[in-house]
């Protein structure tokens, strides 16, 4: 079951040769960007002297902060007129990280997603209901274009509105869904409450992504829905979904090694680790015109599975993501850092420095509650003023993190003090 057999079944040596050839091109393109031009100069890197894949480790890592500092276009390698789209995800504070795509990049991404879907058994006869967020977030549009490329009928239903989702599934015989695992858990309950046995629906496959979940949850969801679920990994810095995806074996996600060079490093020392050892996943994008990125630190923890997969694909696999090396939260598929929230609260004089983020799951959807202490000296004793302040904080946060948190005012002194290692995030979501 191959979509691009030649590429998918390449011998390791051929993969490495292709990777090197593409790496060289990416380096040449990157040398034209302000950010990498400076990085190469500062680190005395002569890209003409990079003659093997091994030399990749001489290039410094790129971090989310580097992307933020080069906002908006310090890493762009093509002229603006060649860019056809941008996507954005949250930075650690203030500015987002923005990724640009040329038409060729969008086409390549779609091909990659189509190929990954194909290896799970998806075909042009399928109806694909895409229940991921559309917009700046890459999750929705990434699989949308891939499924269209494959020839599926795409229902761009996006998130929420469970009864409508159910109706679409019934009326159009949806056979594949793309959904967050938490929403899948909720939706299956809604289906049952409406007197419908989910096994009677035509849904045979699900792609789960955008948030961490356990193997036990996968089994539970497969059983409740009566489908096969495939893990899907991606991050906007590397395009979005499709960076690594499971095949029909459902035993680890194949990295698209013709697009990316994956490394596992020790997150403390930055030293590369051999295949099989657990560490931080690092990606180099070698197949994107608009924005080459080298050695991007994902902060995701996993290991590369050294053994070959039974499906015959030679691209190596990564295991399910085990955790993060930073304090990033994933809320409804959106990346949020506590530091972003802090940066907003610090500029609101009426609230104190103490805050707490409480994450809950209500009806399958993530909800963020932010508890803030009122600063006694600026309390006006007026309910309207409090409501206005509540709205103001909510709007400022929404503008920054794109999700709508609920702001809860607390009495002064009721939250744990800010000194030391106060626990700022309480995650009550269970999955």
């Amino acid at each position, binding site marked *: 079951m191959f979509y691009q057999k030649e590429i998918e079944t390449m011998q390791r040596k051929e993969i490495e040769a292709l990777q090197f050839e593409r790496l060289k091109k990416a380096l040449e393109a990157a040398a034209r960007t302000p950010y990498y031009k400076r990085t190469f100069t500062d680190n005395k890197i002569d890209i003409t002297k990079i003659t093997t894949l091994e030399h990749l480790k001489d290039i410094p890592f790129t971090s989310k902060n580097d992307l933020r500092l080069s906002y908006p276009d310090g890493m762009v390698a093509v002229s603006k007129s060649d860019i056809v789209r941008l996507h954005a995800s949250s930075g650690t504070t203030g500015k987002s990280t923005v990724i640009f795509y040329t038409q060729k990049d969008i086409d390549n991404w779609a091909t990659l997603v189509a190929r990954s879907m194909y290896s799970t058994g998806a075909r042009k006869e399928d109806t694909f209901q895409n229940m991921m967020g559309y917009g700046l977030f890459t999750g929705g549009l990434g699989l949308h274009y891939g499924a269209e490329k494959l020839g599926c009928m795409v229902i761009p239903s996006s998130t929420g509105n469970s009864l409508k989702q159910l109706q679409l599934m019934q009326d159009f015989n949806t056979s594949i869904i793309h959904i967050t695992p938490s929403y899948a858990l909720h939706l299956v309950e809604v289906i049952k409450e409406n007197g419908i046995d989910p096994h009677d629906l035509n849904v045979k496959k699900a792609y789960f992504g955008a948030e961490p979940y356990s193997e036990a949850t996968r089994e539970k969801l497969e059983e409740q829905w009566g489908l096969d679920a495939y893990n899907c990994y991606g991050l906007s810095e590397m395009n979005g979904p499709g960076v690594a995806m499971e095949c029909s074996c459902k035993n680890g996600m194949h990295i698209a090694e013709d697009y990316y060079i994956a490394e596992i490093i020790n997150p403390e020392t930055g030293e590369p680790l051999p295949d099989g050892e657990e560490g931080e996943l690092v990606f180099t994008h070698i197949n994107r015109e608009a924005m080459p990125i080298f050695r991007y630190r994902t902060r995701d923890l996993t290991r590369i599975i050294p053994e070959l997969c039974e499906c015959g694909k030679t691209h190596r696999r990564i295991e399910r993501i085990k955790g993060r090396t930073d304090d990033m939260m994933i809320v409804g598929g959106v990346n949020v850092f506590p530091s972003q929230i802090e940066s907003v609260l610090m500029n609101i004089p009426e609230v104190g420095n103490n805050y707490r983020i409480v994450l809950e799951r209500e009806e399958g959807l993530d909800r963020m509650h932010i508890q803030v202490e009122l600063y006694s000296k600026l309390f006006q*004793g007026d*309910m309207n003023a*409090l409501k206005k302040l509540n709205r103001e904080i909510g709007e400022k946060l929404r503008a920054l993190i794109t999700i709508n948190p609920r702001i809860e005012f607390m009495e002064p002194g009721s939250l744990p003090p800010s000194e030391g290692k106060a626990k700022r995030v309480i995650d009550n979501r269970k999955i």
Partner: protein
Amino acid sequence: MPHQVSVFAENRPGKISRVTEVLSENGINIRAITISDSGDYGIIKLLLDKPQQGNECLKNAGFASTLKDIVAIKIDDSPGGLHKAAALLAGENINVEDAYGFTIREKNQAVFVFQVADVPHTEKLLKNAGFEIISDSELYFI
């Protein structure tokens, strides 16, 4: 003009007792109390015999507390008593943001306490119309 002490309180059991404990310990008497509630939190509004002192005590005890200017007038404890004042305010296009009242049985009188945007202006209008404006000290001696 009299003052009301407004205290922020999370909406959970014990919110009143934590406030009354502080006032009780400091020998401060409560003339009237009301709570504005928004669901998650509320504002406890208090008329105290010693508003400044009460406010300080509550602040020292860690509460978000503040003094607010309010209008308090005497009205007759009889049908139409409040209407006279309300009609006047309506006629002058003055919006009453928050209000409460209490009666003084032995004097057959009542006190109407309310919040408006412009306290001095409202007091002047009511005074000119013959209403008796009550001050902090008078509130306590009623």
